[in-house]
């Protein structure tokens, strides 16, 4: 983890700020197994009806299932609908 990020983390710890706000970390909101709302993404890596891969800070999020579709895409958020069976975090993590 870079020095700047460490400082941000310390500040978030001290003031009890949400880390997605301070450190620009992704936030996932799942509504049952039908909808997922991803904030602070870095773009779409791959998209088909069975798997959607989304680039986030220090890795990627993979959503698997059937009949998946992008309900909406915007600069900071992606809204996915479908029969979601699996959500995975891939990547280096925070070092």
């Amino acid at each position, binding site marked *: 983890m870079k020095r700047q990020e460490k400082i941000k983390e310390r500040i978030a710890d001290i003031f009890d700020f949400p880390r997605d706000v301070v450190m620009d970390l992704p936030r996932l909101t799942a509504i049952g197994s039908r909808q997922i709302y991803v904030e602070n993404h870095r773009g779409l890596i791959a998209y088909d009806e069975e798997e959607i891969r989304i680039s986030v800070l220090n890795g990627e999020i993979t959503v698997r299932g059937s009949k998946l579709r*992008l309900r*909406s895409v915007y*600069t900071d958020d992606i809204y996915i609908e479908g029969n979601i069976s699996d959500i995975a975090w891939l990547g280096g993590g925070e070092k």
Partner: protein
Amino acid sequence: MLYRLMGLILGSNRVRVKGCFPEKFINLATAHGIRLWNIRIYADGLRFETDTFSYKRLWGIHHATGCQMVSEGRRGLWEVLRTLKRRKVLLAGFFCFWLVLWYMGGMIWSVQIEGLENLQIGPVREHLEEQGVRLHARYGRLDFREIEQEMYIEFPEIAWVAIDRRGTYVKIRIVEKEPDPIQGDTPIDIIAAYDGIITDILVLQGIPLVETGMTVIKGERLISGFKTEHGLVNAAGTVRGFSWFEGYGECGLEEVTYRPTGHQVQVSYLWLGGRLVRLRGSGPNFKHYDISIEKKPSRLFPGLSIVTRVYRETEQIVTYHTPEEALEIATERAMRMAHQQVPENSDILTSEINRIPLREEIIRMRVRIEVKLELGTENIDKGD
């Protein structure tokens, strides 16, 4: 989501993109701040929706990605308005339709009259039409309550009328007056309800048969009704006068009364051919009692009844009065009896209390009160 609502109002474009990586196109669009929704991916590309303003900006992007972009149509309120702007006749037709519907909805399209028995429907309908209750009339201008009042005046045979409107349907419900079941075809007289002396007489209708100062007996005709070639003339008027009412009361120096104790015994019998067969219960062991008998005939077997006797125990109470107390009680009883006979709206003028000297053990009192009252009452003339 709000952007979808905005898309419906301001309009949205359905776009088909072919010949490039869909992910790359989406990322590039979002990087330019363009919102895409309802994104579906296909083997040769993708389809999505975006707002009208973003659609123009997408043209710059698709050249950079080398994609082929095709618009598949527009939708939304803005688009509908643009269409309507081009099709003015359609718009005018739409407004005309609602205008005609509104205008015709304010008219009466059906009038129904119900409840007529002796009245003819023709004159009633004619009167209603004169008042404005007719087909194709605008009901907003009609005051149904006022029309109802007009109908009472126009048709005295009507006892009750109600005009109800439900939408374009008007229903008039009428109840006619019942013919007087007592009068028949004879005129009504005023007769004396009590014996008395006449002090005032006022004849409104009919022939007076008595004068002020005359003594009349109960049932005597005071004002006579009569028949004319146009119909019956009933007697009407007031006849006031003096009358007298008497009351009697007694009270013994030793009075025996019975008061229920609350105990009771019920005995049931079968009544068969004039014979009583006891079914349940036995006679009471009470020294004093009241008895009530109820007989219920059988519905299935005529001649068979269930007789129930209820014995209610009473206790004897002996009350001793002094002669003064007995006199007072007897007077009160006599007074009460006399007053019970006096009709309402009468003026009590004098009262006379007399003792009847018979036996020492029982005090007997008589009260006579003089009353000014309405002597006359209506009666049907059975003669002539």
